[in-house]
């Protein structure tokens, strides 16, 4: 969810690793940051809606998703969407971008993996994904500050 700087670079990276990626993004300018070739070839899909709603998640195929990543620039919106993905749609691995360091412990306690986008490069995060697929029981190690 979210195709801003973080979301679009994550989508590009993860899609490049061969995973199926659907991006939920309402803003056409943000959507234009996504790799057009991948969208045209069908490797990446885009849902043009407000990503925090259940309807947008369903349209994006949340029922089959292994991972949900909330990557908008608004912490609380990411938090709400991540909790919907985890609680209502029961997605295995849920990650959320958090700008304000002090709110991380809240999401940690809810079993949602936090991404501090100011200190983590998208490469590092993308590197975590194959681990999750091979061994879903092992919690992904939190990136250090």
């Amino acid at each position: 969810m979210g195709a801003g700087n973080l979301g679009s670079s994550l989508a590009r990276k993860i899609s490049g690793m061969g995973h199926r990626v659907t991006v939920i993004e309402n803003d056409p300018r943000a959507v234009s940051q996504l790799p057009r070739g991948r969208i045209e070839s069908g490797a990446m899909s885009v849902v043009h809606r407000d990503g925090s709603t259940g309807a947008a998640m369903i349209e994006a195929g949340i029922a089959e998703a292994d991972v949900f990543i909330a990557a908008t620039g608004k912490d609380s919106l990411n938090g709400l969407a991540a909790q919907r993905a985890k609680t209502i749609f029961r997605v295995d691995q849920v990650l959320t971008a958090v700008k304000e360091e002090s709110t991380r412990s809240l999401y940690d306690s809810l079993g949602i993996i936090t991404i501090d986008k100011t200190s983590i490069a998208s490469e590092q995060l993308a590197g975590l994904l194959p681990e999750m697929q091979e061994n879903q029981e092992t919690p992904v190690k939190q990136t250090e500050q």
Partner: protein
Amino acid sequence: MYLVIVGGGKVGHPLASSLINEGHEVFVLDHDPARVAALQRQLGMIATVGDASSLRALEDAGISRAGAIIAATDSDEDNLAACQLARSNFDVPRTIAIANNPENAQLFERVGVDLVVSATDLVIANLTTALPVHPLIRLMPVADRAQELVAVKLPAAGAVIGRTLSEITLPYGTNIVLIVSADGRTKNPDADAVLEGEDEIVALSPASTTAELWEVLTELR
């Protein structure tokens, strides 16, 4: 009780005012300086500018000694974050949130908000009580939707009250299946069955004439 209200807009502002009148100590947090100024003008220094989902702002509002937090912004994500931060970081005993979007009400409850007020549900509940209470309830479509099973409650002062089924003219093809009286007794829909006020009529009705059936059954004397 000391109460922190997050969001001083069209809900938070009057809420703060009424809680103060009831003798509570209230503090309001809002990100909009104009709203904070309005609150301060009308209610005194009980409001400050701050982001609802920021720990620092909640702390400045004295959240650690609050008996409850009431999240009443027009942004559901901020309402949820404020309640969860208040609980997880400051152990606030009671968290109350408005869900502006009704689909968030269930989520809020599932993730531990103590009291969720769904704005839409409140409006609907109020409207429903203001409307005449002899609704048409569509129970089930039948025969590929050509017919439908419906229930209609008869108004106490209805034109059909006191008459038998054979005395009233129903739309062609309507079959009355069952009559349930207000006290829960069921009556067979025979030709000589007498209709009483508040009876619930269950009927199999051609979909095209259901509206007409409702009009006949709910017409007032």
